[in-house]
Structures are given as C-alpha cells and as structure tokens.
C-alpha cells in the first residue's frame, strides 16, 4: 500500500513539474552570453512598436479587433471567430486580401487575421508582454530563432510599416525594429 502511494506521489510530482515546465520559457533557448543592458535597451525599442496602438489593434486580449489610432472596435461587429480569421460567414477575407486594396483603401497582407488570444497584449505590463514573447505556450510554440523570424520576416508583421494611405506607422523604423529584435535575443532576451 505504502509503495503504491509513493509511486502515485512520484507520478503526480513528475506531472506537475512537466506542466510547470511547459508554461515557462525554455531557459535553455536563451543565450547565456551577451550584455543584459543591451538586451534591455533593445526591448525598450521593441516595446515602442509592440505597444503602438495600431499594432495593439490586432493583438487584443478579447475577441474584438480594433481600428485606428483611437482603437475603436472594428466596425460592423467584426469578431475573432474560432480560427482568428472571422466568423463562419463574416470572414476577414470578405474585405481583406493579401495586399492593400488600391481602390477602396481597405488594408491587406498575407494571412490577414487577429493574433491568437495567447498573443494578446492589451492591458499587459511591459514585463508581461516580454515574458509572453518567449513563452512557447503563448507565442505559437516558437523557439527564439522562430520568434526572430516571425518578428522580422512575417509579411503580416512587416505590413505595419506599409499600412496604406492614412494609417500611422510605428514610431521605430522597420530596420531599427529588426535590429532591436536581434540585439534583444542575442543578448539574452531579458524581460525586465
């Protein structure tokens, strides 16, 4: 009886440790060399972009995309849907294609969609946003290399700097943002 109790406890402990590990950033991924001060400064530059209202508009923590510099709810009751690409008969693609529309000025980019809810940033602190960026359970199971690829190459992310007429761009240039992401990651991806 005692043996089976011990085995069960051991099993539960392993299960708890595994679940806890799953929710945390994979520390092994993080570079152990580098300059945390540089990483911290780079994070500051990155956050100017990530927290810019027009970037935040597609990273809500609820089911409503926002629009404009004033973050009003997307007109016409537009909602996230189960796949982040709209409701069954009101899909994002009803209006948004893979590039900005020259006639209607409706914005567009490849795989137009809301960021998954786990990548929602609204209402989070700087530290929480940074922690979520490197948390595989929240960042789409991306390694740091994949995260860098996503932030510097994904066409929907890069669209932020080519948003079409009448839309503001982030306060950091695309080139400087890419450099900041590289510096942040190469120097340890600090979160505060």
């Amino acid at each position, binding site marked *: 009886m005692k043996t089976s109790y011990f085995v069960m406890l051991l099993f539960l402990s392993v299960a708890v440790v595994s679940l806890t590990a799953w929710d945390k950033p994979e520390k092994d991924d993080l570079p152990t060399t580098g300059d945390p001060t540089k990483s911290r400064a780079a994070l500051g530059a990155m956050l100017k972009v990530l927290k810019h209202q027009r970037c935040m508009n597609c990273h809500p923590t609820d089911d409503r995309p926002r629009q404009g510099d004033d973050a009003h709810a997307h*007109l*016409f*009751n*537009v*909602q996230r849907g189960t796949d982040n690409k709209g*409701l*069954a*008969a*009101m*899909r994002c*693609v*009803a*209006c948004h*294609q*893979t*590039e900005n*529309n*020259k*006639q*209607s*000025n*409706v914005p567009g980019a490849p795989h137009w969609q809301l960021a998954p809810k786990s990548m929602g940033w609204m209402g989070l602190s700087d530290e929480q946003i940074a922690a979520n960026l490197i948390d595989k359970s929240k960042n789409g199971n991306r390694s740091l290399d994949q995260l860098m690829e996503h932030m510097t190459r994904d066409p929907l992310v890069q669209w932020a700097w080519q948003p079409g007429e009448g839309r503001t761009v982030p306060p950091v240039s695309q080139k400087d943002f890419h450099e900041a992401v590289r510096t942040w990651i190469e120097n340890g991806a600090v979160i505060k």
Partner: protein
Amino acid sequence: MQLTFEINNQSHTVEVPEDMPLLWVIRDVLRLKGTKFGCGQAMCGACTVQVDGDAIRSCSYAAKFAQGKKVTTIEALANEEKLHPVQQAWLDERVPQCGYCQPGFIMATKSLLEKIPNPSEDEINDNITNICRCGTYHRMRKAIHRAVELQQKSKL
C-alpha cells in the same frame, strides 16, 4: 492581365487590369447587373458575391485574386423552375423596399445558411453585417428564419 475564372458555373477568360475591382468585371465586362455598387469601401455589402463559397465584398476585391476561382452571383441562385429558398423567403416576407441592397443581403444570407443551416439570433446579428438604408432589417430577419424552414422542407 488575362483573368480566367468560373462565374455561375461557366468558365470565362477576360482581359482586365489586375487591380480592377471584381465588381467592375462582373457588372461592366460580363454585364451581370444583379450585383450592386454601394459604398465602394467594403462597408455596406451591396456588392456581396461568393468566391469559393465565402461571402466577399467585390468592390474591394482585386480581379487578380479571382484567378482560377469559382464566383457565384445573385444571377445563379434561381433556375427556370424555382427560386432559391432565400429568394423565396424574401418574397414570402415581402422584404424589399427600394430593393437596391437586397442582392447583397441575399448572397450574404446564402453564405450564412451554407455554413450555419439554422442560425440563432446572435449568429444572424454577427454574420449579416450589410447595410440597408430603408431599414428592412426586421423583415430580413424573419425571411432568414423562413429560408431555414424552406431549406429544411426541401430536404424532406
């Protein structure tokens, strides 16, 4: 560009500027006048057609994106013998006032019922977002429920 696509089950090849709105291709090149121009900004839904089954606002859909796709317009809904259940429901409930926006609503409803055959009130509110300046929304809501009944009966 040379655009080849299927519209209402017929293949067409037309020479058009690649950024021409699909709505212009439908109305001015192929002379199918059922789909309407409303706002030109993908906001009102008067220009709704289906592209590969999804409701699309064709005023804001560059022609090049229709390459190789299947487009359905209001003209394809009825055959010589009978109306589409959504069209019949629209008649039964006497929905239209001026009528201008109705093809868009009918196409949006067709798309909704193909994806959600018996939508709730919330699902109707969330998925049918077109605009009717005559304010026929109440009659349209009744017509959508009527179309559900007609579709269910036709399957018996």
